[in-house]
């Protein structure tokens, strides 16, 4: 009983710390499942499906070349640098890997 109470108090105490902070930067690494003008869905290397918002300020780079989000094929490896905004992820940079059929 004491242990349960202690665990509960500890969870309450660290909850605000554990929450993602507004403006925090994250790297999302995985393969694209769907790419559109305003968002991209990525299956991460931890097997989670993550949706990231894409804005006009999002840079999409394949090596040194810029490209459009909607031109990324499903199955392509990407690394998305994203920031937390209002409990959502907003992409700052999408680094695009080689085409899926080139591997």
């Amino acid at each position: 009983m004491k242990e349960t109470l202690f665990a509960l108090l500890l969870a309450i105490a660290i909850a605000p710390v554990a929450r993602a902070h507004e403006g925090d930067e994250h790297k999302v690494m995985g393969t694209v499942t769907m790419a559109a003008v305003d968002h991209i869905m990525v299956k991460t290397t931890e097997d989670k499906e993550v949706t990231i918002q894409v804005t006009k300020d999002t840079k999409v780079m394949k090596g040194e070349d810029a490209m459009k989000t909607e031109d990324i094929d499903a199955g392509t490896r990407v690394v998305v640098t994203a920031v937390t905004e209002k409990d959502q992820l907003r992409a700052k940079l999408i680094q695009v890997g080689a085409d899926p059929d080139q591997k």
Partner: protein
Amino acid sequence: MKTTGRVAFALVALGLVLALSSYLFLRGHGFSARAEPRELETFLARAARRIAIPMDVRDLNNPVPASAEALRSGLEHFADHCAMCHANDGSGNTEMGRGLYPKAPDMRLEATQSLTDGELYYIIENGVPLTGMPAWGTATPDGEAASWHLVQFIRHLPELTEAELKEMEAMNPKSAEEWNQEQEIRRFLEGEGEAPKPAAPEHNHGGS
């Protein structure tokens, strides 16, 4: 004597009211470096900074002649020492810059660009108390020259090119963790290791 007594009483009363309201304000608001300073606070702080910079330094023009070499030196120095807070483009849009009180300014804007060469130099050399800006001065001729190179680079910030930004990214200091992460990203994008299998059908959506 009677008047002096009344003035003293009024001052003590005013002091007590100010102390009590400050106490109540602090108790009710807490604090966060993420807050924005109020306009009056910004105005007073900038006025105090201007007054505190010695007149003879304020009126200095950059003694280092403008040249590609000096600009290059400033760019390299900025990428290595300043970009962590100010960002390579001088926007202040970095994790550190956003979390400071006051936030790192957008140095491309009037508030910074309207400072004199001497004021910029003095701020670089001496820092700004009660902000995140440290004093970088080393009291050596090389250090002073480096600060003047930075002044030239700060003037160049509004015209910074994409190519210069790209170059600066490679010059930004990296921790061992960042270095490892960069290598991991490069290997992943080149196709090394197992990639997760996409669950959705393999087609694109052109719109939202």
